């Protein structure tokens, strides 16, 4: 049984300008002990999908349809109290910006211990020592001394380690990291990616990484799901998708990254702009920008189909090997 199984998820936001279909029928599956990368451009629904898993969608957003099975239980059917146990207990989450997601007036030790107290129902003293342990696990030097320090006394990379310590303090089975390295410099990014890999090897934890950076996904992930306009365009084994992408969007996304094509060559671009999710696009959501669109692509919405072992595509025309 898979650890997480998302089926037909739809999340809509009612805005003044109209109904935004941020997530429009997403299916995802994650086996335990694996890392899934969710890639796509801004506004493609990758963060909203993961916030739905945590049930952190705020009005005017609403989960309209679908199910999210975590260890066999539908998270969307849980009571608020049951969901509180899952958040931070079964599923930990790391947010993008370590500057704004820590409370500036509490010491980092208190912030980590707070989560432990709630979930493990332990004494303050015990929670504090578990917080220090969590800080040691994310390789913060002198953890026992530094637990009393405040967020501003740490560098960006150290703050991100503290966010990770907080998320893993209660030993979750699933860690969701939303752009965990986007705000960091490359050398610090490399440290954090190594840390996530080590933590997974130690704890057999599953990880979902949301990223716009295909290279980060290539480094870290076993599986990949490529999002566009609130839908999954392609998913499957990360290495296979990157070396032999099947969907025209994945191909275009990969080729627009400098350094992928040999230097000196002109970068390939995706024409046009990402779609505005208010206007409903008929047929395939990518067809207005697709370089290989057929006439029928504007009428028929493609159905996700499996093309090879574990690899699926939402495109009626492209199959592997036809490129």
């Amino acid at each position, binding site marked *: 049984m898979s650890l997480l199984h998302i089926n037909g998820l739809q999340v809509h936001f009612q805005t003044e300008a109209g109904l935004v279909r941020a997530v429009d029928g997403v299916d995802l599956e994650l086996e335990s002990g694996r890392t899934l990368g969710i890639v796509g451009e801004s506004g493609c629904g990758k963060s909203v999908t993961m916030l739905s898993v945590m049930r952190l969608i705020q009005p005017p957003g609403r989960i309209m349809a679908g199910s999210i099975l975590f260890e066999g239980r539908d998270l969307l059917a849980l009571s608020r109290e049951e969901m509180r146990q899952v958040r931070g207990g079964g599923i930990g989450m790391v947010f993008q910006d370590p500057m704004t997601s820590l409370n500036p007036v509490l010491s980092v030790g208190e912030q980590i211990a707070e989560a432990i107290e709630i979930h493990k129902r332990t004494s303050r003293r015990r929670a504090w020592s578990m917080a220090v342990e969590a800080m040691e696990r994310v390789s913060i030097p002198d953890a026992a001394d530094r637990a009393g320090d405040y967020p501003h006394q740490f560098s960006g990379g*150290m703050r991100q380690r503290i966010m990770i310590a907080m998320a893993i303090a209660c030993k979750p089975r699933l860690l969701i990291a939303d752009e965990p390295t986007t705000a960091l410099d490359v*050398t610090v990014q*490399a440290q954090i990616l190594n840390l996530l890999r080590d933590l997974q090897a130690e704890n057999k934890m599953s990880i979902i990484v949301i990223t716009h950076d*295909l290279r980060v996904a290539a480094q870290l992930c076993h599986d990949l799901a490529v999002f566009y306009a609130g839908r999954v365009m392609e998913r499957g084994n990360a290495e296979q998708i990157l070396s032999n992408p099947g969907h025209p969007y994945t191909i275009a996304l990969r080729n627009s990254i400098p*350094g992928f094509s040999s230097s000196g060559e002109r970068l390939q671009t995706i024409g046009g702009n990402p779609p505005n999710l208010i206007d409903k696009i008929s047929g395939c959501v990518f067809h207005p920008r697709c370089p290989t669109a057929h006439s029928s692509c504007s009428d028929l919405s493609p159905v996700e189909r499996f093309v090879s072992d574990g690899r699926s595509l939402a495109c009626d025309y492209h199959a592997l090997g036809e490129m």
Partner: protein
Amino acid sequence: MSSYKLIEVRDLVKHFPVTSGVIRARKIGDVQAVDGVSFDIAAGHTMGLVGESGCGKSTLGRTLLRLIEPTSGSIRYEGQDILRLSGRQMRPLRRKLQMIFQDPFASLNPRMTVARIISEPLEVHNMVSDAERNLEIERLMSMVGLDPSHAGRYPHEFSSGQRQRIGIARALALQPSFIVADEPVSALDVSIQAQILNLLVDLQKELGLAYLFISHDLNVVRYISHEVAVMYLGRIVERAPVESLFAKPLHPYTQALLSAAPGFGKDQRQGPVLEGDLPSPMNPPTGCRFHQRCPCAMGVCRHHDPLLEEMANGHAVACHLWSASA
């Protein structure tokens, strides 16, 4: 493409004083944002400037345009030291030296139409008559790939990539020969990033522009630059033609930076992952500024500051491993 030296920078220093005390401010130190930097940029060429946040790359870019007054050093534009010019003498030169900013949301006035944003510099410098103005706006908008019929729209009506095009059109309005582009694609999605990079390359070929291209993204810098300078704590630690830098990085910091940038394969990372963070530029380490994080540090590195020395074919490095005198 002509290749005379358009910009010559020598021993450029910018220290920001740090003060303490509310009633009587006392100076307690200096942030040595740029500390003795020298390089040239040839006309029509791109110098890429890379480094981690806080290394002084943005300060350097702004200092080149005198948006920040340097503490000491010289900046020559076509042989003329622009730091000796008065504000009035500087004005005609400002036309030639322009800037493109990182954030296409914050760098455009939300209350101005695109036409006004683009034409404001033209009016300030009396470049065109009222009659020609609309034609010029149209020309600039088409040049950067915007629809001229959108001239009456406001910035919020455009996507981030289009907004960056507006910023580029504004910089091009005065027919500059040198543009400082400070992280111009960092805020954009990859598919849009590629469009803007292609546009910058096309404009360079068409107009013979020279760029100082500041970025933390090594792949972007590699794509667009002819020469690359790597900055660490206010100093240039390595400078080389782009192929040479990426094929054979000499400085341990450059090597670490290149190996840290994720590639497409898994675990193809060679070389060590750097430990620790950038030290405070307020009191940088003595000797080589990188020695505390350097995997190859030697005794001499702790006490003696290495100079930027030319090795071969324009490849210069500031490291005792490569210096003949060490």
